[in-house]
């Protein structure tokens, strides 16, 4: 509180001081009979010189920032298209840096050079068609070059990925990422958000997951049966709001369960196989050096954005829509560490679309491995704990109602 008081007192005193200075200034200007509409020659010249001074500050500041920070943060591009991207960015940068220096220099030099001088009248120069044509056409030509080069790169980057691209899905939710590799068949299994359960966070669609989802929606901890029995239990006393909420919850789940039943009817168990071999990976995304990847993106709750600054790649992840982006990493993490001389360096996947309080923490470390190491990592993922091991053997009895309601009670219920 003490500091606050000091701040306030300082502000008040500062105000009074300025007011007193103003009084003085007013008195002196009354004596010299200047009104505030005529800028004195001294003021004019001083400010003209300051314009030049500011130009120096701006240009030197820019050069200093460029030398000190210019390219360090961005670093070398670690993907194939990233090289083309950086080339184009550098080209555009040189163009705009030239324009920046040239036009700002003209502006501030003119402001200095043409400040009012006694006896010198301004030059009456209302228009000149030739000049105006020049500065319409020159920018147009430069822009045409920029557009053509830009669109060429854009088309390459957004084109379809080839046949040898590995399909990987990145699943985003508040506030983490999960990767799903398409497995041996290179086909990502189908999904539907209604199939989300704790064991099936990515909502993959197989015969077993549909059954599990139905079972837990019907008889899970917060399943339809539980809610109905609570609502019909006369011994339970509830606040009206709580009851209303429960009724709403029930009707929502009843709608969802109908859709799940329809899904079960239509489901073709032949497609299960494409989901079984998918490899699900959290925390770290492993990629293979020089291997093209086709990424598809999903969002569970709100919009996120998959941003890989080192690979010059970014795509939003949108609930209800699947988006895509492709790239080929071409520098392994190990070589990049050597290049940067930083043994702790890692590539990263960040969230770059505001998604809630912990937005800034939502990231996934990306590791690019040489082919051999990548393959052995991939093989290690196919054992116990994989999606296949949980869902393929249909040992699960469809009686999740008897699942123990542990402290982690959300575990069984898809819907809480």
């Amino acid at each position: 509180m003490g500091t606050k008081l000091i701040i306030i007192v300082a502000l008040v005193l500062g105000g009074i001081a300025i007011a007193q200075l103003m009084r003085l200034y007013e008195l002196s200007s009354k004596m010299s009979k200047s009104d505030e509409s005529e800028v004195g020659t001294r003021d004019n010249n001083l400010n003209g010189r300051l314009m030049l001074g500011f130009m120096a500050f701006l240009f030197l500041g820019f050069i200093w920032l460029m030398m000190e920070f210019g390219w360090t943060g961005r670093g070398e591009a670690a993907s194939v298209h990233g090289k083309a991207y950086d080339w184009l960015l550098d080209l555009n940068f040189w163009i705009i840096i030239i324009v920046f220096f040239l036009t700002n220099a003209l502006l501030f030099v003119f402001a200095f050079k043409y400040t009012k001088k006694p006896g010198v009248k301004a030059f009456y120069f209302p228009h000149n068609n030739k000049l105006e044509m020049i500065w319409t056409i020159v920018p147009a030509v430069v822009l045409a070059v920029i557009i053509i080069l830009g669109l060429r790169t854009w088309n390459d980057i957004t084109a379809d990925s080839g046949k040898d691209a590995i399909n990987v899905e990145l699943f985003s939710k508040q506030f983490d990422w999960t990767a799903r590799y398409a497995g041996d068949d290179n086909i990502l299994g189908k999904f539907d958000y209604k199939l989300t359960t704790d064991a099936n966070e990515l909502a993959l669609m197989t015969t077993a997951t549909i059954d599990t989802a139905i079972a837990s929606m019907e008889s899970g901890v917060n399943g339809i049966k539980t809610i109905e029995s609570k609502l019909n239990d006369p011994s339970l006393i509830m606040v009206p709001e709580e009851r209303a909420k429960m009724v709403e919850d029930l009707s929502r789940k009843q709608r969802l369960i109908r859709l799940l039943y329809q899904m079960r009817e239509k489901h073709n168990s032949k497609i299960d196989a494409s989901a079984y071999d998918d490899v699900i990976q959290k925390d770290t995304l492993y990629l293979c050096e020089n291997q093209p990847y086709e990424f598809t993106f999903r969002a569970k709750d709100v919009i996120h954005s998959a941003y890989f600054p080192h690979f010059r790649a970014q795509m939003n992840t949108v609930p209800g829509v699947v988006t895509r982006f492709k790239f080929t990493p071409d520098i392994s993490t190990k070589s990049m560490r050597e290049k940067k001389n930083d043994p702790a360096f890692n590539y990263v996947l960040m969230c770059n679309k505001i998604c809630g309080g912990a937005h800034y923490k939502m990231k996934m470390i990306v590791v690019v491995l040489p082919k051999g190491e990548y393959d052995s990592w991939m093989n290690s993922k196919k054992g116990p704990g994989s999606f296949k091991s949980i869902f393929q053997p249909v040992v699960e009895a469809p009686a999740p109602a008897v699942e123990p309601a542990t402290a982690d009670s959300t575990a069984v219920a898809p819907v809480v």
Partner: protein
Amino acid sequence: MAAVAHEAHGHHDSHGHHDDHGHHEEGFVSKYIFSQDHKMIGKQFLMTAIFMGIVAMILSILFRIQLAWPGEGSDFVSFFLGEEWAPGGVMKEDMYLGLVTIHGTIMVFFLLTGGLSGTFSNMLIPLQLGARDMASGFLNMLSYWFFLISSLIMLFSMFVESGPAMAGWTIYPPLSALPQAVSGSGTGMTLWLVSMTIFIASSLIGSLNYIVTVLNLRTKGMKMTRMPLTIWAFFVTAVLGVLSFPVLLSAALLLMMDRLAGTSFYLSDIIVGGEMLTNHGGSPLLYQHLFWFLGHPEVYIVLLPALGLSSEIISTNARKPIFGYRAMIGSILAIGFLSFIVWGHHMFVTGMNPFLGSVFVFTTLLIAIPSAVKVFNYLTTLWKGSLHLTPAMMFAIGLVSTFITGGVTGIILADSALDIAVHDTYFVVAHFHIVMGMSAVLGMFAGVYHWFPKMFGRMMNLRLGYAHFWVTLVGAYGVFFPMHFVGLAGAPRRYYDYSAYNEFDTSSLDMIMDLNIIITFFAIIAAIGQLLFLFNFFYSIFRGPKAPQNPWKSNTLEWTTPVEHIHGNWPGELPTVYRWPYDYSKPGSEVDFIPQTVPLADGEEEH
């Protein structure tokens, strides 16, 4: 109003106008509060906007402190946010997002749309056209009161228990639609939407009034091609507002329905806070298209009035005609038109079809051409001028500099391929703060310094004006220039804390933290510098030296009105216009300015 319309043609004795109103003395309430006089309404807009601007600036200092010294308690932060939102002087994550959101909203809409357009369109359109008042004084008054109400609701939304809106000023759903996703999407978001709805009504009423006034109430001889560029800018701005704000309203209404009525315009297949929603088939991209259909013209709604003001100020104080008057009008029209077909450049990486992206690249880069023409015309206007470096002139020159500096980085962002790696990073923040924020703010200051004598009948202090200018220009460049480099390092915007970089790239982290401290340092300097302005402004209203009739020796009509404001602007007949407003230093004339009311001399050509 009929009387006003008639008099616009200058056939009536002006006293007839006053007689219509019974020649009554105005009471305090009708003069200062529920005023229908455009000059008073302009001043009301200005005062409200200055207040909102101060609030938004303080918010920015709060989150700049968090960014420069994350996790360190600050008395300043706890003074404003209290224990609830900043335990121990460290703001909460949610509050950080709330501050960022409200800062953006206030700055874009309340300061630079309502404030800039509202102040100067109101003040200058009738005065520079030779009209008694706006076409509808009553609607004009409504426009201000809606603006005030929406401002108050927006301010109030910061004090609700669950916090203000926190989804960024663009309020993209689903985040803004789901209170389970972030606490600010509850009551705070509802109030945001209500406030903006009223704001849009205010803006529409105001804009319609400006358009009608410009088209119908020009005095005798004031052809469209004799209007000052200020009026051209306000006119096109108003047209943009009328065409684009209703689209924002529809976007907001659909969002309201999704939030309150369970519809699925923007929502599909969502599980949030453990709750599986039944919404299916909506598209968040629909919202983005609607939002940016306003959002991009909005940039020019903010920028064009500033460019108009600076054209007038630069010409007057260079004592030279604005170079390429018709090209300037053409640029304003071209920018206005193009601004409607470029919105997709905000959406290159949203999953929009890449081919559509290419089309937007093309249209967006086209805008650079009229913008370049404007810059070169400003430069040529300064060339061989006789510059009177008044504070207004200095701010206008500053505007040209920021318009260049911020404009060129737009070329990078408009290029879809290059946008991929800098989209939503600090590079974007730097770009739009310089080109839109700084340019518009500098233009607004230029306007205030230049037309202060017209508004308040007194002069502002020159020396304080200079000090204010230099602190502002150095401070603002010091804030936004380094941000480009933070963005090129790949730092996403709207991050509460960059220490997360520690886990993967310490060299980037060091750089970001170094720059963040520099930025915050300049931000604090620039903010303190604004005290010079506030002091000068309020002090001069009451104690500044009395203004002469035409302090800057300007040609436009507003300087032919008496210094003391009167209802109806001119005591006698409305002035007649014989020439364009830029006859400065015309060869053959004794003085270096010829007001628009002076008839052409024998054999004189009209520019």
